[in-house]
C-alpha cells in the first residue's frame, strides 16, 4: 500500500495529516487552516484527541532516542524484510 493509499484508507486521513504536518512545520497560518479543517471534519472532541496524539508522538521520541533503546524482538522480526530491503541497519549509530 502506498503512503497516499494508506492516508486515504482512513476516514479524514488527508485532513488529519495536514494538521500533523502543519504542527511539525510550525507555520501559524497553516496551523490555523488545518485546525479549522479538522474541527469541521471530525468535531471538537476529536480535534483535541488529534492534538493529544501528535503531542504524545512528538514527546516519546525523546525517550526512545535520548536513552537509545532498541526495538523489541517481535518488532525487529516484523520489520526484518523491510529493513533489509532499505539496508537501514547499515545506518545504526
Amino acid at each position: 500500500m502506498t503512503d497516499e493509499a494508506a492516508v486515504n484508507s482512513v476516514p479524514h486521513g488527508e485532513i488529519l495529516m495536514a494538521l500533523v504536518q502543519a504542527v511539525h512545520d510550525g507555520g501559524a497560518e497553516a496551523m490555523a487552516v488545518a485546525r479549522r479543517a479538522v474541527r469541521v471534519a471530525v468535531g471538537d472532541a476529536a480535534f483535541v484527541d488529534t492534538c493529544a496524539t501528535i503531542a504524545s508522538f512528538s514527546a516519546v521520541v525523546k525517550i526512545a532516542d535520548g536513552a537509545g533503546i532498541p526495538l523489541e524482538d517481535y518488532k525487529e522480526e516484523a520489520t526484518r524484510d523491510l529493513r533489509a530491503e532499505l539496508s537501514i541497519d547499515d545506518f545504526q549509530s
Partner: protein
Amino acid sequence: MTKIEVAGEMLPMRESLAREVEVGWNRLTSPGTWWSGAERLAIAAEARHAKTCKLCQQRKAALSPYTVPGEHDSTSDLPPAAIEAIHRIVTDAGRITEHWILSLIEGGEMPALEETKYVEIIGIIAVLTGLDKLHQGLGLAPRDLPAPIAGEPSRQRPLGAKRNLAYVATLAPEDVGPEDPNPYPLHGDKNIHRGVSLVPQEVFNFFDLDVELYLKDHEIRDFEHDFRAISHAQIELIAGRTSALNGCYY
C-alpha cells in the same frame, strides 16, 4: 468532559487528560530524583530556548553533527554537559549516539554529568514536549513556566539498574527492588517503558501523561473498542506520520 478555552472558544477535553496535564506541570516544578524543582524548571526553560540556538541549527544542518564545534546559546547556569544534553535531545535526538552519551557521563571535554541526571533530563524534556506540543496543536501559547516548589531531590538510584539494554542503564522488571518505585505493573514493561527507568519516577512522570495523550498499554491493541473521539486507525495514522516527521523509527 471538561472545557478548555482556545481563542475565545470552549473546546471539550477529557477530564483525565486535563488532570494529567496539571499533574505534569506540577511535577515539572517539583523536586525530582536528582534535580531540584528550580533546576528542573531551568532545564525546561533551556529546552524551550534550544530551538533558537545557532549552534544547534548548524549541527542540525550538518551531515556530521558531531564535527561542528561551538558554544550553545544558553539561558541558564546549568553545567555545560547538561546544556549540551538538553540542546541535543531537543534539536537532534534522532542522531544521538552511544558514544556521545558516554562522553557526557564519563567526562572529557567538559566535566562529567551523572548518568542519573542525564536520564532525568530526558524525562523532563519528554514531559515538556508533550505539554507544549498539546498547546501548540490546540492553538494555545506555550504556558509560562511556574515558580519552583522547594525541596531536596530524593537521590535514590535503583541498585539493580544495569547498562544491558539501552545506551543508558535501565532497570529490568525482575531487578526492581522493594525500595524502588515500580512503574511496570501500571504502565507495562516494553523497552520504551524501560528507557528512563534508571530514574523510575520519570517513567511515572512521562507515562502518567502519555497514556492520556495516546492510549494505555492494554488499549493499544484492543480493536474492539474505541477509547478516544478518533478511531484506532486515525490514531495510528497520526502516530506514524508524527513519528516519521520526528525521525523516530523505534
